Structure formats: C-alpha cells, structure tokens
C-alpha cells in the first residue's frame, strides 16, 4: 500500500484547513417537487404498505416508497441504492429517522413499479435487499447500536439481534394490521445508545457479573478517582492489593452493591464486565415518544434476562412475537402497546403474554422506585 495524500500537510496542519463548516444546507439535497412545495403540504395518504402520497397546496403530489435496511451497510450497497435513486428518482433519496430509505417519485404508477422492483432484489443467500414497508400501524425498522461489531461495552450483539427480530416480525413490517405503530429499539448495554428507554418494545443487552479487576495494570491505565466517582451506587473504592508479592494501587468493588451498569468500565479499561454466562438480554416494553393521546412514556422491564443465544436468539424472538400477538389481539385501534398494558393493568399483561413476574421486575433503584409500586387497592384478579 502506498500512502495517498489528500493534500493534507502534516507539517502544516493549518495550511488550507477548512473547519467548522457543519453539514451542507439541506436544501442542496431536496428533490425538486419537495423543494417547490416546501412548507406547503396539505395532507398525505398511505396508498399501500410502504407507499406514501403527499399532496401539496399547489396540487402537486409526491409518492414515497419506503424500504428497510440493515443500517450496517457497505459502500457497495449504498452505490446500489444510488443506482436505483438515479434510475427512478432523478438522483434523490432520503433516510428516515429509523434507518429506512425513502425513494420519492412524482408518478403513482412508477412508485408502485418501484415497490415491485425493490421487493424483488435479493442478496445471493436469499434475504431481501430492499423490503418495502414500515408505514402506518405496523412494525418499522429497529433503531439500534453497535454491539459486538464495534463497541467495547456491549452485553450482546446489535446487528444480530436486530436481524433475528426483524425476520421474526417481518409480516408486521410489510402489513399494517396492528392497532397502532410499534417501535422496536435495541441497545447493547445500559448506556442505551439505542435510546430504548422509550420504545414500544426494547431489546437491551445487560451484564450480570461485577467487573473483574485487573489489579496489576489498573493504576497505569486508569485514573482511580474517576473510576470511583463513576459508580452510581458507590460500589467502587480505592484500595491496595498484593499480587505475587507486589503491592498495587487499585480499587475494590462491593459486589453486592453492583448493578452491572458498566460505568466504571467506561472510565477504566481494567474493569471489564463481559462474560458469556453473565451477559444477555432484558426486554422492556410500553414506552413511547409521541404526544398523541397519551404522554410520552418510559419502557418497563418485563423480562429481566434472556441468555445470549446467537445467532438467532430464539428465546428472545419468541417472547417478542408473543407480546406482539397478545397486543394485536387485545388492544383498541390507535392504542399504543404501553397504553394497552396500562389499560388492562400490568398484572393482566403478564397473564396474557404468558410471562413470569419476578422480584427483579419490581423497581428498587433509588427513591423513584416507590412510584412504580401500587398505592391503591385497585387491581385485577
């Protein structure tokens, strides 16, 4: 490999340097009809799963074909997407906030043709490249994180759990037969980059073993006070330890105080948590973000632990489909998953989803825990 210079001169880093320009202005990227009718849209229709029609005050209409992606995508794949956009959409496209691709066209017939075309594109091993769907009252793409593909703190994989889940709920992606939209999110550790704290269904990687302490190296690699300060439960304290006859400055961990958040590990690489048997998945449900009818709500933990069972995490997808089915049968039209569970009562939720309620599902973290306990005699048998 020969180093190819971009023009950057390491000797004079400030030479020709361009900084602080931010992204380009979004209007550079707007499809012409979109640009023309900017701020003048009148209404929309979902013509069929994955196809939206937006009509402007001018009478103009734009047809959007939405399709799923794996988010983790290669430049080969992006180029293929560009080819399609060039051929069908004059070189314009967009990504949604949930990592779907939207192709915008001006002709309804062409939009429907594009949907057919997209649905016919497959990877050699058989999975679809561009499944159309994700609109209306169904499941759309999963917001997720890095997992074992790129992060140092995950308790599970992201891309793998997401692929397994989307395969399992694929029908709900292409149809619109649920009572309301169901948003699934995934985060591979308690940092929750996937912001699973407010999703209808959330897949969350969790650790269950306290950090192992790499005493010999800790003081070299970490700022002990930062590691101590990082622990929300005060489980970490400075300490000295003798290993092989030598004394090391290090930390000690009150293991019974640990709730496996990994914060200390974020600050200190000598405190790894990962463990094949300890790590796995918690499932949370009933969060939402929109202000429609009910207020935004947090997700609640309903399954405290499912072991990692790659590549397809069948125990996990089994529970997810069970919850989706129970919701689909029980909820009213327009009713989000959490609103349904609240209406029927969480005691009933566990019954109809055939889930076990265990002590781990009762909040015991800090004062606000109290607000999740039941302070009434109102409950169901």
């Amino acid at each position, binding site marked *: *490999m020969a*180093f190819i210079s*971009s023009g950057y001169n390491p000797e004079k880093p400030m030479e020709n340097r361009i*900084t602080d320009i*931010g*992204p*380009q202005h*979004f209007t550079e*990227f707007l499809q012409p009809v*979109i640009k023309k009718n*900017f*701020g003048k*849209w009148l*209404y*929309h*229709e*979902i013509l*069929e*799963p994955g196809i939206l029609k*937006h009509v402007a005050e001018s009478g103009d209409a734009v047809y959007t074909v939405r399709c799923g992606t*794996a*988010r*983790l*995508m*290669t*430049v080969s*794949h992006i*180029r293929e997407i560009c080819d399609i956009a060039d051929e069908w959409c004059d*070189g*314009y*496209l*967009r*990504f949604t906030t949930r990592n779907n691709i939207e192709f915008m066209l001006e002709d309804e017939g062409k939009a429907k043709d594009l949907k057919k075309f997209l649905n016919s594109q497959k990877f*050699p*091993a058989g*999975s679809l490249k561009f499944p159309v769907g994700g609109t*209306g009252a*169904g499941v759309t793409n999963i*917001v*997720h994180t890095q997992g*074992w593909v*790129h*992060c140092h703190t995950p308790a599970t994989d992201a891309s793998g759990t997401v*692929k397994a889940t989307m*395969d399992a709920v694929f029908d709900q992606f292409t149809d619109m*037969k649920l009572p309301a939209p169901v948003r699934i999110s995934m985060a591979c550790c308690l940092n*929750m980059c*996937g*912001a699973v704290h407010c999703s209808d269904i959330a897949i969350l990687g969790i650790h269950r073993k306290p950090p192992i302490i790499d005493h010999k190296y800790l003081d070299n690699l970490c700022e002990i006070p930062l590691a101590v300060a990082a622990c929300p439960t005060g489980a970490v304290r400075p300490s000295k330890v003798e290993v092989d006859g030598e004394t090391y400055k290090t930390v000690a961990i009150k293991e019974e105080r640990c709730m496996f958040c990994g914060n200390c590990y974020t600050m200190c690489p000598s405190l790894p948590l990962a*463990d*094949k048997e300890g790590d796995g998945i918690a499932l949370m449900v009933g969060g939402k*973000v*929109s*202000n429609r009818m*009910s207020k*935004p709500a947090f997700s609640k933990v309903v399954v405290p632990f499912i072991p990692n069972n*790659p*590549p397809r995490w069948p125990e996990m997808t089994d529970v997810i489909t069970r919850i989706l089915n129970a919701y689909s049968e029980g909820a009213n*039209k327009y009713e989000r998953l959490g609103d349904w569970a609240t209406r029927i009562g969480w005691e009933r939720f566990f019954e109809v989803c055939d889930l076990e309620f265990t002590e781990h599902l009762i909040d015991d973290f*800090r004062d606000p825990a109290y607000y999740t306990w039941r302070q009434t005699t109102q409950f169901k048998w």
Partner: protein
Amino acid sequence: MAKHKTPLLDQLESGPWPSFVSDIKQEAESRAKNEKGLDYQIPADCPEDLLGVLELSFSDGETHWKHGGIVGVFGYGGGVIGRYCDQPEQFPGVAHFHTIRVAQPAGKFYTTKFLRDICDLWELRGSGLTNMHGATGDIVLLGTQTPQLEEIFFELTHNLNNDLGGSGSNLRTPAACMGKSRCEYACYDSQELCYNLTQEYQDELHRPAFPYKFKFKFDACPNGCVAAIARSDLSFLGTWRDNIRVDQEAVAAYVGGEIAPNAGAHAGRDWGKFDIVKEVVDLCPSKAISYEDGKLAINDKECVRCMHCINTMPRALRIGEDTGCSILCGAKAPILDGPQMGSLLVPFIEVNKDDDYQAIKDVVEGVWDWWMEEGKNRERIGETMKRLGFAALAKAAGVPIDARQVQEPRHNPYIFWKAEEVEGGWERSIDDFRKRHQR
C-alpha cells in the same frame, strides 16, 4: 474462500430481512477482486476480519473491542471514536478500527452524488462499511486507522463541503425530522432551525467545553418523529396557539367512508366502519371535541394539541396558523440515575428566522452558561436540573415561571424560602427570643 469460517453468522443470511452478513461478504468480495484497482489505504481484507472477530464474539459471547485511545483530528475534540481489537494478531485488518461521525444534512435528504462521494472516500480510506445512520443522526463511517483521519477530514471538508459530527463532551450533531420538506404537520421549519443552530454552535460542537455531552433534536410537531423529547438535552417540538382548522366537508367524507382514517395507516386489518365518536371524539385526551348534527366542533381552549384528531383525519383537520415551538430540557438515557424525558421549559416560543432565532439562542445560551457553571463532571443537564431544581434552570434560561411547566404542583411543603422573601429576614437574636420564651 472466505478468510474466516463464520458458521454462526452464515445463519443470519437466511430470512427475509436484509442481511448485514451478506452485505459485508459482498464488500469483502469486491475488495478482494478490487476491480477498480484501488490502492486501499487500510487493509483490503478488513471486512473479512470484521466478520471473523464478530464470529468469535458470536461463539464466545463476549466483545473483542477495547477502549479507544484519544484519536482525532487536529483542533477538534470529537467526531472520531477510537477503537482497537483485542485479538489483533488473529484479525490484523481490524486491529485499529476507528469510526468517523460525519454530520448529516438536516432531515437526511440526499443526492446520489453526495452519497457516491462518501462511498468513494470510504472505500479508499476506510473499511467500506458504514452505519446509515448512527443513533444520534450522523453518517457513521465504520473502521479506519489513525493515519487516515486527517486525510479523510481534509477530503470531507475540501471535496464534500462537509464537516465531522460530534462526540465527547460537546454539542452532539443535532438532528431534525423531515418537517416542512414533506410533512403537512410541521409547525415550524425544523430543518432550518437545526441547520442554523448547528452552524451557530460549531465551536461547541467540535471543542469540548461542556461537563458532558449535549444534544439538540428538532421535531416540527408533537408527533415526535425524531424522538426529541426522549433523546435530546434540549428538544424543540412544534406547536401552535390558535385554532385547529376544520374542513367540515372533509369531516363528512371521513364519516361517509370516502376517506380512510389516519391516512390509511390501519388498512391491513378490517377494523369496521370509521366511527368518528369512538375513534376521535372519545379519544381526545382533553375531551375538547364534539360531533353533533354532522359537524365537528373543537373547543380549542381546552385542546392540548396532542395531534390525535389531526392524525386521524389529516384531510379534514389542520394544525393552527399561529405556530412556534415548545422547548423541553433534560432528556437522556438511564445512566446514571434513571431515564429522563425532556421537561417543558418554554411552553411556546416563536421560531423566527428573521432575527436569526435570537430568542431561541438566548434560551440555549442561558441554559449552557448555567450548566457550565454548575454542572459537575459527566453530569447531563437533566441531572443538573434535578439536583438544583427546575426553577433554577428556568431562571438561568431567562424563562418566566408558568404553571404549564409542571404536570402538578409539589406534593411536599419543603420550600426553600430565601431570607429576602421573608418579612424581617433571618437575622434574629436568641436573647430576644428568650425574652418571649423561657428555656
């Protein structure tokens, strides 16, 4: 043929959903073939090594990535996440594997030209793998080595006219819903405000000066398509102050079954005939709607602008015309003290491009100044406001106190009165007291 056997990952090639494994394999193949004859600036087989290390994780159930060192581009404190493999001998192609966060355009509209340019850059100087997009909103370029960082930055800024995104204790890359570009519900131009604030605060975005990370997200209406209220330290959600516009003819068309409710979002199941009372009137959270004699009436004073009726009958109902946004503060994921949604700081503010959004910037800067003064290291603003109280935040932001800021008043009478609020102040002498009260 593949460099590593990946029996577990191979099982993820089946099933309908797009397989990232198949995609990575296609990239591996393309790089192996190298039809364009590129002089790959990082190992050509890094996609294969990525599959290899991932397969190892799939079989031993643990990640094989180490903490990143401090890597980045000169003068910036963010935009690059350093990453190293803990089995570099086995997977040399990904021994160093840093990600680059590239600022995405507001609303994530693209031309293929721009995307192809990114692809060319990343094929040459990176792994060829990306995330479209990261959870914060960036284009995430997945995997390169330290010597490439400045080169990539140089090409990005010079050739693509685009900057890096945020990471570290900075302002993070702001994100917006598609808003006015393609949505009839947009109460303000979320993309323009996002763009403007992003440009205004480039310094805060690139140079860490905050106690911790800080996020902006812009939803042009209460539906919240970019999840601002849950995922940004300051959330800007569109709303209005006047009346919902009602088209009675279109109402009749919905009632008559000529238009599908909720734009057809429920078409996959037979939910029976549309029942305006059951589906709209009864579901209004503030019971502000009545339907009598074929006319829909909204008591706008009681409406809480939840969007339900509008979402359900988009052709009959439209948002008001006196629009602006609400600003909420403090949303974050549960680390450390539990999750937080944004709390309503400013019920309504005009979104006024004419004065360059000065009123909004005043709030932003008031909040920041306070947080930089009062915030502890690694304390999100949501935690600072919990610790020091909502009123302190409002004061710092220059926002008047308003009953709308609370869901309900306090349950405890533990009011921290100040000496100057109390008649006579706090100075008292025990001797005076003892004149009135013997020991």
